C-alpha cells in the first residue's frame, strides 16, 4: 500500500513537472526561436547548460579582449549571439532580439534580469552595407572558402562545436 502511493506520488510529480516544462519556453529543452539560424544548429559555442549559466561572464571576459587588446576572433561575442539567435521577420529583416518573446528577452524577462546590452548594441544582425562590402572582400579572400565546405546546399547543417565557433567568428563580421 505504502509503496504504491509512493509510486503514484512520484508519477504525479513527474507529470506536473513535465507540464511545467512544456508550458514555459525557458524550461523546455530549448529556448531557441524557430526562425533563427540557431534553430538549425547542433549546439551553441559551448554546451547549452554551460552557456545558460555563464554567458554573461564569458561575454564580459571576451569584450575586454576585443575592446582593449583588439583581439577580434574571440569565441564569445554579443554580435555572435544576435547573429545566430535573431529570428527572421519574413520581410528580409529580423525581429529585434530584445523584443517580447524573442530569444534574449524571453529568458531575461522570466528571470527578471535587466537586459541593458541593447541600449547600445545592435538588436539585429547587420544587413549588407556598402562600405562594409569592401571589408568582407578582404575577409572572403582568405577565409570564406573554408566555410563553404562545411555546409552543402540543401543539407541540414550539422556542425561540431569547433566548426560552430568558426562559423560564429566568420559570420559576425559579414
Amino acid at each position, binding site marked *: 500500500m505504502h509503496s504504491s502511493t509512493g509510486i503514484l506520488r512520484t508519477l504525479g510529480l513527474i507529470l506536473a513537472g513535465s507540464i511545467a516544462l512544456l508550458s514555459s519556453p525557458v524550461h523546455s529543452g530549448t529556448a531557441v526561436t524557430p526562425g533563427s539560424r540557431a534553430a538549425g544548429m547542433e549546439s551553441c559555442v559551448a554546451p547549452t547548460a554551460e552557456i545558460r549559466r555563464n554567458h554573461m561572464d564569458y561575454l564580459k571576459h571576451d*569584450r575586454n*579582449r576585443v*575592446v*582593449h*587588446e*583588439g*583581439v*577580434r*576572433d574571440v569565441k564569445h561575442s554579443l*554580435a555572435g549571439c*544576435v547573429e545566430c539567435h535573431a529570428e527572421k521577420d519574413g520581410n528580409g529583416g529580423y525581429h529585434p532580439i530584445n523584443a517580447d518573446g524573442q530569444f534574449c528577452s524571453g529568458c531575461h524577462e522570466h528571470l527578471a534580469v535587466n537586459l541593458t546590452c541593447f*541600449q*547600445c*548594441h*545592435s538588436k539585429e*544582425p*547587420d544587413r549588407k*552595407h*556598402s*562600405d*562594409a562590402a*569592401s*571589408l568582407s572582400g*578582404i*575577409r572572403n*579572400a*582568405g577565409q570564406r572558402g573554408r566555410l563553404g565546405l562545411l555546409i552543402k546546399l540543401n543539407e541540414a547543417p550539422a556542425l561540431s562545436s569547433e566548426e560552430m565557433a568558426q562559423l560564429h*567568428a566568420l559570420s*559576425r*563580421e559579414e
Partner: protein
Amino acid sequence: MTGKNEPNDMKRREFIGRTVLAAGAASVAPGILLTVANAKSEGEGASSDIRWGMLIDSNKCVDNCTACVDACERENGINLLQRPEGQGDEMWNAQRPQWIRKVKLRDRQTDEVTNLPMMCQHCEFPPCVDVCPTGASFKRADGIVMVDRHICIGCRYCMMACPYKARSFIHKNVEKQTVRSPRGKGCVESCNLCVHRIDAGATTTACQDACEKDGHKAILFGDLKDPESQLSKALKEKSSRQIRADLELNTGVRYTSL
C-alpha cells in the same frame, strides 16, 4: 616623457621597425603569397610594433567638400541617429556626434583660406586618458585612442581635456546602431581610426577611401613605426606639422601644407 626625447624615441622605433620587417620576411615560406590585407590576423590583437597615424595634406583638401565627413558618418553609424523631436537646428548640430569635421582657417592679412579635416589626433600622451577617472578612455598598444563605453560613466572630463574638441557625448537614447558601432546614451565617443576595419586587416580608413574616390587624395593613413610605409616615406619627404605641437602630445595625425 616629453618631446625632447623624441629623437631617441624615433631611432628606437626605426630599429624596432626594421627588426620586425626582417623577422616578417624570414617567416614567410617561399612560394606562399602573403597579401598586405591578410598580414595581420584577427587573433593577434593590437601590437606595439605598430603606431597608426595619418598625414593630411591641407592643400589637397577642397573647400565645401564633405566626402570624408559623410563617409565617417556612414561607416560609424552616425547617420542612423534621429533628431530628437522638437529639437532645433542649433542644438542638433551642436550635440550630434562628430568624429571628423572640416575646419576652415583664414589668414587675416592675405585672406588665404586653408581647409583641414580634424578628428581625434591619437596623441601619444593623450590628456583625455590622463583625466579619465575610470580607465574608459585608453590608448591601445598600436596607438589608437578610444573609449571603452562599457566603463565610461559619462563625466565628460575627457571632452574638457582634449585640446582638439575631438570628442562627442550621446545625449539621448539611441534607437538604431550597426553591429560594428555600438552607441548609447550617456557615453563619450570619438574617431577610432576605423578600428573595426583595421582589426579586420584593412589598410585604409573610410575617410581616406572617400577622399581618394573623389580624386583629392588629401588623407594618408598608415604605420608611423614602419619606415617602409607610404606614410613614413611621405613624412620623411615633406615638412609636416602637429597641430598645437607646443602641447607636446606627439599626435599621430600630422598635417602638411599648413
